């Protein structure tokens, strides 16, 4: 029971070696009045076969609907090799590589990961991961405050075209340190940051500007102009990017004339299953000048006592176990296993495969949008280019339509109404390379039916 290997003889000889008669005596320093009588709130033990039945039934309840939701988590094909290797016990059941000589596998993998992410983002240095994209944005804002020595305001400009959950998370993660998040409105026609929204900050002390590309609506922001606008005013730029998109889109390190200072994002599209929201991983890359302000683990290559190359955790003086209250963050455990999966995924994809995934996903989304706007009562919401996600307006309230679609086994997109009531009934929809023309046609005809029913009701 409880995966305990002891035989009765083992226990007896161990108790004798300790010099006690019963295991209970080992708890004699706990005040007796605090001792727990029983655990009625926990069910009886289930063996492996029984829990297998329970979980299979729970999985059946969840089903496998046809999903057109993106909004920060994307269904991509994951090659079989990715998790076959990532779940090897040597990766799965190891811990943070504190003993470098016995952890060269994990350390070298992280070094390769850092190389890939730095190159993908067009920046010089990557850390070994943060929790997820949303919390990484919060950490990036805190980092910008440390890195921008010319600013004392702790003001961060966050356009409302940034994922609403990311904005909420950044406020929760960084708000206690006095950061002030000021939300910038978007242009109603374009679904992008409007130039006029920035004008009123001219001449003011601002620490950082956050730019999401593609933005929450899937729209492409004018990143060059935004980046240059910020840098001309000593404002640091925090980029929030989709890693798949970087196979085709300009990397943050090349935005404008100087490039973004920090890039973060959700690593999930790189070989991590949707899995109800996690575990995913946040990535963070930056210009080398900011490396000592970065949170989280970083791996470096060095030499061993025999002069051979090897890998080790480095710049640990930034971290909580050394610097304690003065650390760059309290993060300790990160998302190592997901980084393992992503590094294998990126190796299998290579530059050509990642471009294919990005292009195929984009092509499917264009096909989807074309099919949906062919449905009576559906129109595109914004003008201008998108990448692999788009917003469409409906002529009937979105929530009941989505419910009707779900009853038909289709998840028709993310309802924009809660976070953007000014848009009227609208959906954010996404198709990746996993969707076929038949899937898209099924969705479009079901949507036509549901809208018809909604009008009739």
């Amino acid at each position, binding site marked *: 029971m409880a995966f305990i*290997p002891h035989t009765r003889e083992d226990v007896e000889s161990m108790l004798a070696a300790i010099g006690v008669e019963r295991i209970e005596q080992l708890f004699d320093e706990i005040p007796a009045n*605090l001792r727990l009588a029983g655990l009625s709130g926990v069910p009886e033990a289930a063996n492996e076969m029984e829990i297998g039945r329970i979980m299979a039934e729970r999985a059946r309840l969840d089903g496998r609907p046809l999903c057109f939701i993106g909004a920060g988590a994307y269904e991509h094909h994951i090659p079989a090799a990715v998790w076959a*290797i990532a779940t090897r016990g040597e990766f799965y059941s190891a811990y*943070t590589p504190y003993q470098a000589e016995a952890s060269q596998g994990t350390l*070298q993998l992280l070094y390769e990961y850092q190389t890939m992410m730095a190159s993908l983002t067009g920046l010089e240095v990557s850390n070994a991961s943060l929790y997820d994209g949303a919390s990484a944005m919060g950490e990036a804002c805190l980092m910008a405050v440390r890195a921008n020595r010319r600013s004392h305001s702790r003001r961060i400009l966050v356009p409302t075209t940034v994922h609403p959950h990311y904005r909420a998370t950044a406020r929760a993660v960084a708000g206690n340190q006095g950061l002030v998040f000021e939300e910038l409105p978007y242009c109603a026609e374009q679904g992008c940051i409007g130039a006029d929204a920035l004008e009123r900050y001219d001449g003011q002390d601002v620490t950082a500007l956050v730019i999401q590309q593609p933005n929450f609506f899937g729209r492409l922001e004018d990143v060059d102009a935004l980046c240059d606008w910020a840098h001309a005013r000593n404002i640091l730029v925090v980029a929030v990017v989709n890693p798949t998109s970087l196979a085709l889109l300009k990397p943050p390190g090349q935005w404008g004339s100087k490039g973004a200072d920090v890039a973060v994002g959700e690593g999930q599209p790189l070989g991590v*299953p949707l899995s109800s929201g*996690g575990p995913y991983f946040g990535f963070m890359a930056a210009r080398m000048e900011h490396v000592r302000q970065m949170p989280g*683990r970083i791996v470096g290559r060095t030499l061993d006592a025999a002069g051979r190359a090897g890998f080790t955790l480095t710049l640990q003086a930034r971290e909580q*176990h050394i610097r304690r209250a003065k650390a760059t963050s309290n993060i300790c*455990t990160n998302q190592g296993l997901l980084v393992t999966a992503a590094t294998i995924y990126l190796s299998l994809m290579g530059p050509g495969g990642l471009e294919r995934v990005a292009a195929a996903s984009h092509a499917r989304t264009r096909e989807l949008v074309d099919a949906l706007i062919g449905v009576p009562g559906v129109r595109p919401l914004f003008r201008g280019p998108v990448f692999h996600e788009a917003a469409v307006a409906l002529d009937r309230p979105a929530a009941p339509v989505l419910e009707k679609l779900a009853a038909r086994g289709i998840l028709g997109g993310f309802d924009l109404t809660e976070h953007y009531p000014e848009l009227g009934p609208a959906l954010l929809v996404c198709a990746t390379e996993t969707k076929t023309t038949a899937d898209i046609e099924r969705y479009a005809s079901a949507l036509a039916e549901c809208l018809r029913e909604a009008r009739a009701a």
Partner: protein
Amino acid sequence: MSTRLEKPIFEYSVPGRCAEDQWPRDPGAAATEDLPASLRRTGRPLLPEVSELETVRHFTRLSQLNFSIDTHFYPLGSCTMKYNPKACNSLAMLPQFLARHPLSPESAGQGFLACLYELQEMLKAVTGMQAVALSPMAGAQGEFAGVAMIRAYHRARGDLERNEIIVPEAAHGTNPATATMCGCVVREVPVDPEGDVDLEALKAVVGPKTAGIMLTNPSTLGVFERRIEEVARTVHAAGGLLYYDGANLNAILGKVRPGDMGFDVIHVNLHKTFSTPHGGGGPGAGPVGVSARLAPFLPVPLVGRRGEQYVWLTERDLPQSIGRLSGFMGNAGVLLRAYIYMRMLGREGMGKVSEYATLNANYLLARLQRAGFDAAYPNRRATHELIITLKRQAKELGVTTMDFAKRLLDHGMHAPTTYFPLLVPECLLIEPTETESKAALDAFVAAMAEILAEAAQEPERVTGAPHTMPVRRLDDVRAAKHLDLTWKPTASHATPTTPATPASP
């Protein structure tokens, strides 16, 4: 474990080689013609061009350069490196769970939500708290949530001056770092020679600025804080709250509950006590539990129940919430693994865990003392972990804790935690966990005894260790001085510089 070093994957790369069977079909250049040229990438990223077999072989070989629980004894103190049951992984990876989008409607997630709801209930039962939120993604984020709730609680009462967080000097580094992230000031209190918090010092520190105290119990010194009730009374009387760092929950599972000791808020490391994998540095999960007065401040989302349906509870249901700590629902897949493990342990298994973890630690302590090692707290019971100090050996033999740690690797054992807590000189913090057999513990004692004998006779074998790992001792100073954080192509290696056009090789 292999000792053959593996070259970086970029050095296998050959332009034009690929794993195309894993790629989607080429949609053609027209598929992306709508993307404006000014927003497009012009050079390809530095990703390797390798076959599937090369990829599989490379990463399999890298895995073989690691110690892990599945391959080696891994008594890393404070980390609870217990066996990760295979069923927990395979059942959490059922296809429906993996495919479920985080923004799916509740109607397409009743199975998943039921697991989370029951996990909340089980965690309430084992911790003695009134409400639980599962979303924090690691212990440190759970700590953050806890201290943020303490702050929010004081603020909501108009008690705006309370910004001091008290931590014992032996606390985990995450405790003071968390206090800073929550905008608090850290006040340290000493512990007495027997390892308990110095009550007089605590009484001198608490006051109208005290927001709360962060404690681990059993403490980081591997002993149970015996006067915990008096600590609780002292802090509560001063208007502060008590935070329980759940790093050491494995020691007391089913025996005593933080809620009954007087704690107001706790986090639980599911990757420690509830056996979810450590994954080479994560993912973890750090759910938080609270007493009734802190429940309104829990981070969202939570899982609630309306009639027969499980539903998400968000900011609308908890308007005083400290907010959202992740994009979606924390490390959901980790939560499923912990749920499965807890169901397999059941009511009776919970207590067995702490009993056998404690038996193993006390047995190791007794055997190590007999083998000539000094306990840091010889008058105390060990809990689920124990500390020995090599101060005497370092002085007499010139062999340090680091040397012992590295030499243990040659014996095929991962080193215990070294030099933590900082309070104990030359220390090893050893946590065997309940899933290790007596034979594994005996082998560890034999290895330690052998190293001790070697340190007397042939100290350079110990100070020069490890000798059998893929690399010798690594130069950390050089690593920090000459930063080499990314692989760089040299003339002899192919570099992917071809333009970013969706081309079929």
